[in-house]
């Protein structure tokens, strides 16, 4: 059984994490109004989301103090999820010549073959 005093310390930690999550939410929303170019916007949004997810995982889901088997299972999950994303996105980088979309139904081909029949 955990000593009540330990729980009190935890509670303070949870509230601190809560405050941080709220601040990060405000920053995410505020940053989206800066109208940065798409690249930095996506990078910033996903970085803040990853930090928030890390905080939730580490503190609320108790991953800070967890057994090796959980870490092992989650590491394998991370590898598989990365593979899932990689293989999916590689298909986008692997267009047959001339089948790449340009502007909406643009008549200008990006490659050697004509655009007709693209996708």
């Amino acid at each position, binding site marked *: 059984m955990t000593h009540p005093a330990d729980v009190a310390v935890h509670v303070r930690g949870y509230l601190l*994490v809560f405050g941080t999550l709220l601040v990060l939410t405000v920053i995410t929303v505020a940053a989206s109004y800066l109208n940065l170019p798409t690249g930095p*916007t996506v990078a910033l949004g*996903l970085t803040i989301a990853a930090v928030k997810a890390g905080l*939730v995982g580490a503190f609320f889901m108790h991953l800070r103090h967890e057994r090796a088997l959980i870490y092992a299972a989650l590491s394998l999950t991370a590898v598989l*999820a990365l593979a899932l*994303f990689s293989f999916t996105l590689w298909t986008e980088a692997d267009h047959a010549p001339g089948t790449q979309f340009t502007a909406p139904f643009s008549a200008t081909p990006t490659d050697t073959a004509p655009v007709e029949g693209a996708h």
Partner: protein
Amino acid sequence: MSDTHMEIPYTTEVRPDTGLTNPKLGIWLFLASEVMLFGSLFSSYALLRIGAASWPDQSSVLNVPLATLNTVILISSSVTMVLAWAALKGQRLDRYKLYMGLTFLAGVGFLIVKTIEYREKFDHGLFPSTNNFLGLYFTMTGLHAIHVIGGMIVNAYFLGPGTKMWKTDPDRFTNRIEVAGIYWHFVDLVWIFLFPVFYLL
């Protein structure tokens, strides 16, 4: 049969070979499969958006203030959930009920806001069939909402009839709340990614 009922093993004591209780290992393996489920949808989103000839300005189609409100609601519910567990660790059933009740209410609030958002879209003739973006939006936020409902059913049980276990086996009940909490935090975690991906980027 009544005197030969079987104990479910390792609900509170740690299993020597895994170093974990069975429910703890079980919930994490389940969540690992959930990562792949949502991962497949997020990677589909990335593929369809990168490959699209044009993409709507997301933040002008969707309601950012309502989604921000829902983000705050869900983050708050994660805190009340973990405080409910901490209350049981501190032997305070009354506080547990308070925090668990708040967690459930936050779930209700989230779904109400989501319903308002969906209705707003339907009223403007925006449906999953309208375009790829809305198809992904309704699929992914809809699947997430189903997860919220699932978590609320579990939480409602632990707030109501499930509380009886506190009298007979408090340690096991506390573990159940921790495991239910880990699931609930995962639902929060998915939303933490859905929010920027659909509303802000």
